[in-house]
C-alpha cells in the first residue's frame, strides 16, 4: 500500500487550475475546466469519468500533447518545475523520460514498420547513456520484465505480430525504457479481455513498486479503480466533482454523480433487480448546463444548483467535493 496524501509529503506532480479550451467552428469548447490535483510519489491516482468528461484531455494536456487550435492554461508542476512553461529541450527530457505515457490502442501508438527492438532502443538512446550492446541487453530485460515469453526472439518482431495484450506489454516496456518516475495511462486495458486486463493491471502495480513510480490512471471502469488505485478523482463535464481515497469514496460517496455511477454497476447478490441508474446522458462539452453541470440529471438538485456552480471544497483530509447537497448525499450512504 503506498502513501496516501499526508500534508508532510511534497507531491511528485501537482496540477493547478489546468484548463483546456478547444477552438471549434461552433465556438470555444471547454474540455478541461480548472482541474487541480496532486499525485504523491508512488501513488496510483484514478481519473474516472464517462465519455466527454475530459479525463483523457486532462491527461494529454498535462503532457503538452494538445495541438492547436486549443489553449492550455494553468500550471503542471513536475518536481517543482512547470511543464507547460518549459523550454522545448527540457520538455523533451521530461516527456517520454521521467514521465511516460501509455495508450488505449497500442497498435496506433506503436510504429507499425519498426521492429520492437528498434522502438525500445530508440527510447533508451534518447534517455540513457547506454552503448549499443547494453541497449540490446536492456531491451531484452525490459521485455522479460513486462512478461513477454521468449523475449530475446520476440525483440525482432513487428508490433502486428503480437496479440492485443502482448502489444500493450510492449508499449509498457517502451515506456519503462526511460526509467520513468510517473506513468500516465490512458485507458490502457479498455480494449482488452478481462483475463488479459487483469494481467496488465497486476503488471502495472508490480512495476509501480519496482520502479517507485507514480501512476495516473484514466478509466471509465469503476472495477479497475477499485482494484488498482489508491486515490481517485471523478470528472464530469470537464471538472473534478469529487476526489479522495478509493476506499472512502466507495464506502461513502458525497457527490450524487459518484453515487449514481456506483449504483449503475451491477453487483452480485441483487440479480434481476432495477439498478439505481442516472437519468439522461452525459452532456456534450459544447453545451454544458448552467449552474452545476450535473443538475439536469441529479435527483438531489434544488433551485440553488441551477443558478450557481458549486466549488470543489475540502470536506475532510484529502477529500474534496463540489456539491451543495453533499451532506444529504453522504447521509444516503453507498448504493447497494
Amino acid at each position, binding site marked *: 500500500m503506498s502513501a496516501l496524501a499526508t500534508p508532510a509529503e511534497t507531491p511528485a506532480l501537482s496540477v493547478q487550475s489546468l484548463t483546456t479550451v478547444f477552438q471549434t*467552428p461552433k465556438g470555444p469548447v471547454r474540455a478541461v475546466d480548472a482541474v487541480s490535483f496532486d499525485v504523491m510519489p508512488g501513488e496510483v491516482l484514478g481519473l474516472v469519468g464517462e465519455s466527454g468528461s475530459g479525463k*483523457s484531455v486532462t491527461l494529454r494536456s498535462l503532457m503538452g500533447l494538445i495541438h492547436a487550435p486549443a489553449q492550455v492554461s494553468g500550471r503542471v508542476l513536475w518536481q517543482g518545475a512547470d511543464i507547460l512553461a518549459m523550454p522545448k529541450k527540457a520538455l523533451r527530457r521530461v516527456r517520454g523520460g521521467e514521465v511516460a505515457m501509455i495508450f488505449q490502442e497500442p497498435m496506433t501508438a506503436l510504429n507499425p514498420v519498426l521492429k520492437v527492438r528498434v522502438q525500445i532502443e530508440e527510447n533508451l538512446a534518447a534517455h540513457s547513456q547506454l552503448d549499443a550492446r547494453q541497449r540490446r541487453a536492456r531491451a531484452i530485460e525490459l521485455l522479460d520484465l513486462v512478461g513477454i515469453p521468449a523475449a530475446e526472439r520476440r525483440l525482432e518482431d513487428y508490433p502486428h505480430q503480437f496479440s492485443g495484450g502482448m502489444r500493450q506489454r510492449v508499449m509498457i516496456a517502451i515506456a519503462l525504457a526511460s526509467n520513468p518516475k510517473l506513468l500516465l495511462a490512458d485507458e490502457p486495458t479498455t480494449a482488452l479481455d478481462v483475463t488479459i486486463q487483469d494481467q496488465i493491471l497486476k503488471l502495472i502495480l508490480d512495476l509501480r513498486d519496482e520502479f517507485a513510480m507514480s501512476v495516473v490512471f484514466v478509466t471509465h471502469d469503476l472495477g479497475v479503480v477499485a482494484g488498482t488505485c489508491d486515490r481517485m478523482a471523478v470528472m464530469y463535464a470537464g471538472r473534478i466533482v469529487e476526489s479522495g481515497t478509493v476506499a472512502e469514496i466507495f464506502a461513502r460517496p458525497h457527490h450524487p454523480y459518484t453515487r449514481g455511477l456506483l449504483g449503475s454497476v451491477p453487483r452480485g447478490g441483487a440479480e434481476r433487480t432495477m439498478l439505481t441508474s442516472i437519468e439522461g446522458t452525459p452532456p*456534450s*462539452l*459544447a453545451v454544458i448546463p448552467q449552474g452545476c453541470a450535473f443538475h439536469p440529471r441529479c435527483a438531489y438538485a434544488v433551485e440553488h444548483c441551477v443558478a450557481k456552480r458549486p466549488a470543489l471544497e475540502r470536506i475532510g483530509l484529502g477529500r474534496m467535493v463540489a456539491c451543495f447537497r453533499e451532506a444529504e448525499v453522504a447521509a444516503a450512504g453507498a448504493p447497494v
Partner: protein
Amino acid sequence: MRAIEAPPQRSWRSRFKVAGLPATLIVGGLVLFASLVLAVVPSLFAPYDPAAMDYNSILAAPSLAHPFGTDSFGRDVLSRVIHAYTIDMQIAVFATTGPLIVGVIVGALVGYAGGLAESIFGRIVDAVISFPQLVLVIAIVAVLGPGLTNMYIAVGVIDWVFFARLVSGEVKVQKRLDYADAGRAMGYTPMRIIFRHLLPNAITPAIVYWMTDMALAILLGSSLGYLGLGAQPPAAEWGVQIADGKNFMATAWWISVFPGIAIVVTGLGFSLFGDGLAELMRTKK
C-alpha cells in the same frame, strides 16, 4: 472524445458558405440554371437565327451588331453559341442518365451479391478501363455510323461501368454495417435491403460523379462533333463550330474561341455544382 476532435480538413473552396449552403453549389447551380434556360428557349436570347447567312458580313470581327463576330458563312457566332446549348446540354443529360441508372442498379446488385458476379464485373471493368474512353467511343461510332443517337449508344455501352464501380464499392462497405444485418434479421427481402436501405447510403459518390460525367460528356460530344462523328453540320454545336473555325484561327479566332469558352464555363458549372453537392451530402451525414 468524439465531441471535441478538430473537424476534418476540407478544401478551401468548400469553406465559403452562402445562406448555409456551400458557395460552390450556388455558383455552379447558377451557371447550370442559366445553361438550362438557354438550352430550352435559345431564341429568346439569340439576336439572330443561327442558320441565317449574311453574305454582307462574312468573317466579321466582334462588333456591337455581332458581339461574338460572324463565321465564314456570315452566321452570327453568338446566336450559334446560344443555340448550341440545346444540343450540348442534351448530350450532357442524354449521354449520362442511362449509364447512371443502369450503373447504379448493376453496381448495387453486384456489390451486394459479391462472389462470382463481382469477379465477372471486375473483368468487365478491367476491359473497359484499359482503353482510353475517347478511342473506344470513336471505334464504336465508326462501326455504327456518325450521329448523335449512335454517340449516345457508344457512350452508354462504356459509361455505366464507372457508375457501377462506384456504387458496388460503396454498397460493399454499407452491407457490412449492422443495419444491413438488422434488415436481414428482420426478414426483409434482399431487394428491399439493397434498394431501400443500402442504396440511399451508397449513391452519393455516383451522383457527384454524374455531375463530372456530364461535363465530360459535353467535352466528348464536342470532340466528336469536331471530328465529324457527332452532331452534323450545319447544326449549331460547339465542337462543330470549333471545327468550322479551324481554318480561320489566324484571321478569325472568334469563330472557335467563343464556343470553346462556352464549353469551359458549362463544364466548370457542372464541376462546381458536383463539388458543392458532395460537400452538402457530407455535412448532412
